[in-house]
């Protein structure tokens, strides 16, 4: 199984908690903004859903070769 990376733009994040609700294993709220539990994760559709659900589009998920998986263009 290949690895994905999670990038979170702290400047854009407003801490709605949408990602922590969508993918509780992968995100946690710290000091009013979200942070990925691990920046490199095993493939998990929940991470893509979290990026798609973020109202601020503050989350970027990339595949091992750097392709952006979410949010979709």
């Amino acid at each position: 199984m290949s690895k994905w990376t999670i990038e979170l733009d702290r400047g854009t994040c407003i801490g709605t908690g949408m990602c922590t609700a969508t993918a509780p294993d992968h995100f946690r709220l710290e000091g009013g903004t979200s942070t990925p539990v691990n920046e490199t994760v095993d493939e998990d559709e929940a991470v893509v859903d979290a990026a798609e659900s973020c109202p601020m589009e503050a989350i970027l998920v990339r595949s091992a070769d750097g392709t952006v998986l979410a949010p979709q263009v």
Partner: protein
Amino acid sequence: MEPRSYPFPEPDDLVVNETYLELQRDEPVARVRLPYGREAWLATRYADAKIVLADPRFSRAPVMDAGYDPPRTMPEVPRISTILSMDPPEHTRLRRILAKAFTARRTEQLRERAQQIVDDLLDEVQAQGPPADLVDALAMPVAITLISEMLGVPALDRAKFREWSDAAVAITAFTVPEIEAAAASLRAYIRDLVEEKRENPADDMLTVLVHAHDNEDRLTEEELVSFGVTLLIAGHETTGSEISNFVYQLLTHPDRLAELHADPSLVPAAVEELLRVTKLSGSPGFPRIATADVELSGVTIRAGEAVFVDGLVVNRDPAVFANPHELDFHRAHNPHFAFGHGVHHCIGAPLARMELQVSISTLLRRFPGLELSGEVVFKKGRLVRGPERLPVRW
């Protein structure tokens, strides 16, 4: 101390009731009593609102519990669950189904269509000549057409649901039986439409929901119907009212209007600022219930107690917004809660922003001499506030 009677009287204009501002300064977590149900708290500061809306120790689900007696404005306790009365993971299960349909990128793809709708409506306004009522001629049709096309509601049916929706979002503007009958009609209508999508799947959100139910078992039939009704109402009453509200705000703030004429690139920032200051909600909002003891501004909220947040007074918290009552299109940072906050943050926020930007910028470009041509009376007793009519000339 004796709890205050809540909600506070609705102002005639889009201003915020002074009591909110006094409480924010002197009693940021205040005891309130609604017409029905148990007593509650009202939180008016930004930092507290953030906790109430986003901290998982606050829950929406208890309002659906049989014995709870939620604080409310109407005698009946609503017993039909919607996405707004759910917590994660149930809430997330529903929201994920449509999250992809509402991303900023997907919404951008609809900008061209929105522009065409606005252009067609304004062609008609121009052809008819002044005066015009922008509520009926622009604001409501823009919002209704877009959400209907996204959901897959046929054009011919739109007049029908417009009437039901107006009553379904009432608090005191209609009688309780009228409100219930309108809500039932809307559910029956969406139920029929769902059957129709089953027979004839299309490239629309109702079909996505039907597929998620029939093929993936991701939601129940009742949840499907509720979701459809919620999207239809929330997708047009709010944005339709805000288009009118924003035009009214600009026509009554000539300096800001002149600023937009001079520099139309300010429109997106103007939309954010108008979202921040405009009192859209006409209801006390949706209370959050503490699931554990939580401290807010030195007040302990006990587990089981309900807290209301008013987004618009929160948006005027001087701790976050300098000169909070000023309409300022140059704020570097504008983290307003006009779309709510937390997991219930409006799923249609990017769509609403786009519709507002297209409507305002096109209207100003095509009607540079626009002005009010009569008295503007605001609707009352409904979940969302907006003018009955917006008479203009040019």
